[in-house]
């Protein structure tokens, strides 16, 4: 700043010296040629008029005019050596007129300069607003947009700011900058006044006195989407230029936020359509799966009821056993489906509790032993006591589903390994069979809900596994299935030890 000032002064000085030298030189030449001081004065006046506007300050302008006039007059006296016409009056007239001209031209240039400065400021403001607008337009996601808006406000005026968002008829604080900014309840009230009245409130508006912020409603189509609050110093007069700039920013922000809202809604609709599609696929798959055992049950019942079919006692027993088996399969299926509704998108948040791993595994084993009495289970648990946050019934169900799959793949008289491993921040549960393993096509579509993918008339496994995956994902874990090197398939799921949000 100081350097620039000195430079400007030097420039003025140079110009002053040049003007003075030029004036004296030209006046001297004119006097030699024309020998008339009036012509000389006029030319000097003209020269000054042309030169004076280039001085940056009033002082320099007047000074230059004064000294030029003085020197010209002295020159005239020296050159013409006649004191008759070059008396004190002529000096005064000359001084007066030059200074007057310098004053007037100075004023005019000042005005022009001001105009120019204003225009430039306006230009840079428009440019800045455009830049902000571009940044707002390129940002994706509502919360990112809000944060960006506040950081833009900070760049413009280096003031803390808050953004209130409208949720239905309610206002709620969406974000603030800096993060740790404390806001009083009165701020909330002032913001909701701005929302209700759709007009600025807070500092400088006369509305809602007890606030340190000025609130700008973000309005599009006569609807307030959000309220932007910028902190102002209540002691000082409000900077109207800044208010204007902020209002401009508010207008642009309102447009972008509305655009984002529309985009979000669009996205939502698309997601719902997709969910609807998945749901109908799922229903188709289930219906197919449910129909098979039901057909069997109804057939067996009609055979048992019918008088024309003569059944031996063993055949009757077989039919009854089949009915009971199919019915209990149906029941497990329905329970799986119920689990899906408990972990689905619209389900209430899963209530997890800390459960000892050993109790959960023991429960799953107890159920599985009853179903598959001929299978030998090898269990390997870590020595130390482990607790994992989970919904125990759902995890038991996942384990029994995996064991059921393993039993199906490896036959009824085989060995199934159950392995629990303690990782640093998670616990891994593995169920391993020693059967023929998974085929390539199975591996690629293990967890997708297509019930009858095997094409066999038996019960599909896709649904069970897809439910397992939903359950594990809701727990913030992951489930994988692969083939072991020495034969057999192994399914592993990992549960985090710390509470995590749903994925």
């Amino acid at each position, binding site marked *: 700043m100081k350097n620039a000032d000195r430079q400007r002064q030097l420039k003025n000085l140079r110009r002053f010296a040049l003007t003075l030298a030029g004036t004296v030189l030209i006046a001297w030449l004119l006097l030699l040629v024309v020998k008339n001081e009036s012509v000389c004065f006029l030319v000097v006046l003209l020269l000054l008029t042309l030169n004076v506007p280039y001085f940056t300050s009033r002082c320099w302008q007047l000074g230059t005019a004064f000294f030029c006039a003085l020197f010209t007059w002295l020159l005239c006296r020296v050159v013409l050596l006649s004191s008759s016409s070059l008396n004190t009056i002529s000096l005064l007239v000359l001084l007066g007129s030059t200074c007057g001209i310098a004053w007037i031209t100075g004023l005019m240039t000042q005005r022009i300069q001001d105009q120019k400065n204003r225009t430039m400021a306006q230009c840079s403001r428009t440019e800045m607003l455009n830049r902000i607008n571009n940044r707002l337009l390129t940002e994706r996601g509502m919360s990112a947009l809000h944060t960006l808006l506040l950081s833009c406000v900070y760049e413009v005026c280096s003031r803390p700011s808050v953004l209130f968002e409208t949720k239905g008829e309610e206002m709620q604080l969406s974000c603030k900058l800096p993060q740790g900014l404390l806001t009083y309840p009165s701020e909330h009230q002032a913001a909701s006044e701005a929302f209700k009245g759709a007009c600025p409130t807070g500092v400088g508006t006369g509305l809602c006195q007890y606030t340190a912020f000025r609130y700008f409603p973000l309005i599009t189509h006569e609807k307030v989407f959000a309220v932007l609050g910028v902190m102002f110093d209540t002691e000082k007069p409000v900077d109207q230029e800044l208010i204007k700039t902020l209002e401009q920013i508010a207008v642009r922000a309102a447009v972008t936020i509305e655009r984002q809202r529309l985009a979000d809604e669009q996205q939502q609709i698309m997601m719902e359509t997709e969910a609807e599609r998945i749901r109908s696929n799922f229903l188709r798959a289930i219906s197919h799966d449910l129909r098979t055992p039901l057909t069997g049950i109804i057939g067996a019942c009609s055979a048992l009821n019918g008088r024309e079919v003569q059944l031996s006692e063993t055949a009757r027993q077989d039919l009854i056993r089949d009915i009971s088996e199919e019915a209990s399969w149906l029941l497990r299926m329905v*329970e799986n489906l*119920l689990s899906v509704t408990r972990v689905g998108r619209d389900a209430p948040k899963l209530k997890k*509790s800390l459960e*000892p791993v*050993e*109790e*959960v*595994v023991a429960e799953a084993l107890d159920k599985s032993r009853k179903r598959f009495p001929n299978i030998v289970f090898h269990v390997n*648990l870590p020595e130390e006591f482990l607790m994992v946050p989970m919904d125990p019934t759902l995890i038991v169900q996942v384990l029994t589903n995996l064991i059921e799959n393993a039993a199906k793949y490896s036959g009824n008289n085989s060995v199934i390994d159950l392995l629990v491993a303690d990782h640093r921040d998670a616990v891994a549960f593995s169920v391993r069979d020693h059967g023929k393993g998974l085929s390539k096509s199975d591996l690629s579509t293990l967890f997708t809900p297509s019930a009858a993918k095997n094409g066999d008339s038996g019960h599909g496994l896709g649904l069970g596994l897809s439910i397992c995956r939903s359950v594990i994902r809701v727990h913030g874990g992951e489930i994988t299935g692969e083939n072991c090197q020495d034969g057999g398939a192994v399914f592993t799921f990992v549960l985090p030890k710390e509470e995590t949000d749903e994925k």
Partner: protein
Amino acid sequence: MKNKETILVVEDEGYITRVLNTVLSASGYKVITAATGAGANALMSSRLPDLVLLDLGLPDIDGIEVLKKLREWSGIPVLVVSARGMEKDKISALDYGADDYITKPFSAPELLARIRAVLRRNGKGKSADDVYSVGAFAIDFTKRQVTVDEEPIHLTQVEYRIVELLARQPGCVLTYDSIISQIWGPYAISDNTMILRVNMSNIRHKLEKNNMAPQYILTEIGIGYRMAETEEERQ
């Protein structure tokens, strides 16, 4: 001939009521049925059944409310019937004084065993014996001594109190919360069952031959623990 015990079946689904009626009548119980909570309230006070089989999902009143109202004036044993996944309801039913619960769907032998156990326990009241034993496990309440295969087991003070609490009411499910408040006092933070679970793990390490198949203290997953009942009593 011995008097038939009366069982009140409170169930709103006709098909299930019919099945229960058939099974229970065939097993020598006298069955009365109610399809609504209001009907159940009326029958309980007019007929005084020996046991109530209460479905929690009723059309008019919440089953828990029926239970609360009953417990205001009577200790008639109540066996709660509820679907899987309704752990919270089961817990609150147990805490409001239900004697036991059974999860739908159940097999007939399972139901009959539970009914017999509840009736027998109720006839006897809280075990006042000095000793309780099941399988190889035995607890002597006066000596404060637990043995497995006649080998004394060393338990800590808290561990012994948990075992005693469960053994005093064999066959009854005690919820985590009720165990915690009885062992650690009513002001213990029952949200955190960690302390109970750790103790239970230690108890099992000391008592059970195979941790993965506990024989004496059984887990009711998501609800609580239950002490196994003796074979003789099950007859």
